[in-house]
Each structure stands twice: as C-alpha cells, then as structure tokens.
C-alpha cells in the first residue's frame, strides 16, 4: 500500500469540502480522482501534501503516518505534486526548474556551494544530467535555456511534471494535467504518464478529461460534494448511474448541446 487516506474531513468555515473520505492506493497504480467542480479534489491534494491540515482523519504513506509533517518533508519522503494553476518558477529557465526539483535529493550547503569541493561538483553534475534526461522525457530538451514563463501552456504543464519527477517521488500527484490541452497534446500526455508509471512511480491524477482518465487509470474514486460517491475500475465508474447523473452526464446530453 502506497497511500492510505483514512476518514478525511475538511471544513472551511461553514463549508465542508471533504466529508469522511477514505482511499487506498496500491503500488504502481495510476489512480484517478474525479468529480464535479468543487467536489474537493484539489483540497484532497492539499491535505496529502499538508499545505493545510485536515479537520479530522489521517493519511499514511507506506504505513507511516504523514499527517502534520511539514510539506517539504513530505516531498522528502517521496510524494510530489503539480498544481491546477501552473506554478512554475517563472523567471527560471526550464533546466533550472527541473534542477530545483532535485533539491531534496541533493545536499550541498552554503560552504560547499561556495568553495566547491569535488563532492559538490559531482553532485551538481549529476543533478544536471538528471534534469537533462527528464527534459528529454517530457520532450523539452531543446528548450532547456528558455525562461519558463515564455513556454506555451502545454509545455509548461509538462515541465511541471518533469520538475516533480526530479524529486524521485514514489507517488506523483497530478492536478488536471490535461487542462487547456487539445486532443493531440492530451495523447502525448497519456504516453508521458505511462512512461512515468513504467519508472515505478505510483500516480494519483485529478482530471476532467474523461477519455484520458478512462484510458489511463487502473482505479478511480469519484467525489461529489466532498463525499465519496463511487470507487472502482473505469468500466464500473462509467456505468455507475449515480456517477453519470452527478458528473459524467449521458451521451444524449452531449448530443443536445
């Protein structure tokens, strides 16, 4: 078991964004988290990475309780995320962005950074090589010295994924990676996530692009109004009437449009 989400509740003032949600994610899975807008998906990501604490409930990662641990320590342990509204280090180059991602897997401090002993130079070299390799993986190697804010939208999303992978996560959290991409780009994204999975990374993905989700995920949880509405394989979810009513809509609806 990679991640176990146990009975999470989250209230913002009077609004309860999550109510008693439990999810278990197995190693190597691509797990989908879907649901209507405002269902609490991003909130769940924020709780997993402890950007804010849950009101009640617990999260364990490889059987270790991680609730209340500082966000950077969570990354250290092997969970890394991307953001729904892209949050790159906008003034840095593409390569630097990825190198920052490797921060928690390197250790040079002030003195070794300044005086550059051998160990520091090797480490720096390794980080750089790894970053270049990851840029190749996401297809951005020719943009390595472009400042990231000048990249196109889809490229920025892929860069965010590369940056997250640079931290060697065991669990990768993707928040709507396909938003704003057209279908061709989405298809490329599909390949990318599959490759990430092949590296042995477990993926938890939030996405509204149903064809992508259904093709990509091994299992899916549907949230609705902060509550778990359904859980299962893509087929089960696609055919679950409650999910269709609350989220997917039927093909006929589509045709009316």
């Amino acid at each position, binding site marked *: 078991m990679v991640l176990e989400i146990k009975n999470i509740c989250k209230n913002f003032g009077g609004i309860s964004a999550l109510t008693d949600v439990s999810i278990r994610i197995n190693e190597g899975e691509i797990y989908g988290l879907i649901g*209507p*807008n*405002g269902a609490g998906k*991003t909130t769940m990501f924020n709780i997993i990475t402890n950007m804010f604490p849950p009101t009640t409930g617990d999260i364990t990662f490889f059987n270790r309780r991680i609730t209340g641990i500082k966000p950077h320590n969570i990354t250290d342990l092997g969970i890394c995320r991307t953001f729904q509204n892209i949050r790159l280090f906008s003034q840095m180059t593409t390569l630097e962005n990825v190198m920052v991602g490797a921060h928690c897997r390197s250790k040079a401090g002030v003195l070794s950074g300044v005086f550059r002993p051998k160990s520091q130079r090797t480490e720096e070299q390794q980080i750089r090589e790894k970053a270049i390799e990851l840029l190749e993986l996401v297809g951005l190697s020719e943009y390595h010295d472009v400042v990231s804010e000048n990249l*196109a*939208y889809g490229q920025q999303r892929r860069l965010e994924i590369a940056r997250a992978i640079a931290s060697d996560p065991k669990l990768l959290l993707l928040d*709507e990676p396909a938003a704003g991409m*057209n279908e061709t780009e989405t298809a490329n994204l599909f390949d990318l996530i599959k490759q990430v999975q092949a590296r042995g990374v477990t993926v938890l993905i939030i996405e509204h692009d149903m*064809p992508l989700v259904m093709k990509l995920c091994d299992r899916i949880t549907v949230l609705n109004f902060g509550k778990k509405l359904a859980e299962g394989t893509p087929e089960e979810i696609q055919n679950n009437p409650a999910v269709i009513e609350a989220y997917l809509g039927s093909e006929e*609806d589509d045709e009316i449009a």
Partner: protein
Amino acid sequence: MLKVTGIETFYDKIQALKGISLEVEQGKIVTILGANGAGKTTTMKTIAGLLKPKKGKIEFLGEDITGLRPDQLLKKGIALVPEGRAILSSMTVYENLEMGAYQRNDKEVEQDIENVMKLFPILKERKTQLAGTLSGGQQQMLAIARAILSKPKLLLLDEPSMGLAPLIVTAIFKIIKEIKESGTTVLLVEQNAKQALKIADYGYVLETGKVIISGNAEDLLEDSRIVEAYLGKKSS
C-alpha cells in the same frame, strides 16, 4: 458586426500576431481554434482592448474601434471572459456579479443577477463566499455569469470549458447556444474543437499568429487537416 483586418500584436519585441483578419456576423457563433501558443488569447485580448495592435484595424458595427480602452469597448457592447478566469478573488461572489453590471444603470440589474444565479445554482449558494476560495470550476462559472450581466452585443469567450467537469462542459455549451439565441453574438476560443465546431456557425484556425484555415463549421468538422491536428486520433 466585427471586422478585424490584418492586426499585428507584439509582446515587447516578440510578435504574437502576424496579420490576423477575421469577421464575425451578427447573431452567429464564430470559433477560433489552434494549438497552444498559436495566438488565440492574444487575438481576443487585442479585440477587447487589453493589448494594442501595432498594425491593422478593428471595426465594430461599422465603427473603427482600434485602440480603444476595454471600458470604452464594453460600453459599445464587447465583453470578454478572459482565459484563466480572472475573477476578483478578494470580493464576494455577489460583488463579482455586481461588478459584471458595473456600466449598467437600469433597475433590472438585481433581477438579472437572480436570473444568472439560476443558470449557475452553485453561485447562489455561495453568494457571500470570497470568490478566491471557490474551486477552479466554480470560478469559471462565475466569470461567465459575470460577463453575461453586462448584456453585451458581442461576447468574447476564451476557453470557457477549461477545467470544467464533463456535465458542466455540456451545460456551458448549451448556455453558449442560449446566449446566441437570445441575440448576443459570440466569438469563442476553444481547445475542445469538436464541441466548439458543433455549436459554431463559422470557424478560424490559427497557427503561429496567422489564420491558416477558415470556413463553415460543418465543413471544418470534416476537414482532414483539422481532424488530424485538433480532433486527435482518438476522437470518440
């Protein structure tokens, strides 16, 4: 009603638009398609007055409107729902809607706000919540609702379906159609090419700042170049 001829827009020294011309007829839905970075958003911002074109001319209802400020354009009837849901996050949902009707002085504003909240019931529920704490999709709905409230003649929509749940996407496209039927002309930028072309009357395809294809929506849906580039191999 809108006629754009040969506009060129720059970000500092980077030329984003290299002579775009397009036309929108009254009462129609016209859609602009194109890959990431093609210049769709730049086109919309230029029309809405947020960016000033270096060259070219924009006419609205026969009048030259090139270089006017956004607030002046709104007065003439052009409203924009920008990409990335520019809601006012430190104001409440209701205040955001009120701001949508900023230039109106009629008595029906309140009634109209009630009406759009019926269109998006979640907004009614969250009337007094700060807009910045809405979920991504809720913010998008707010942005559309807000633009409708200005009662525009021409509504510019930049990727309205981005980040929305499938049901809501369907609903949004339905609403766009309703908006058109109520007499407002729509210029729509979409990644969701298939859905967009289904409701549109006419379409343009941009690539690196230029119009490369244009035509009736039905024709474009069949166009092999478009099917390949934007509808993807796996269009269901």
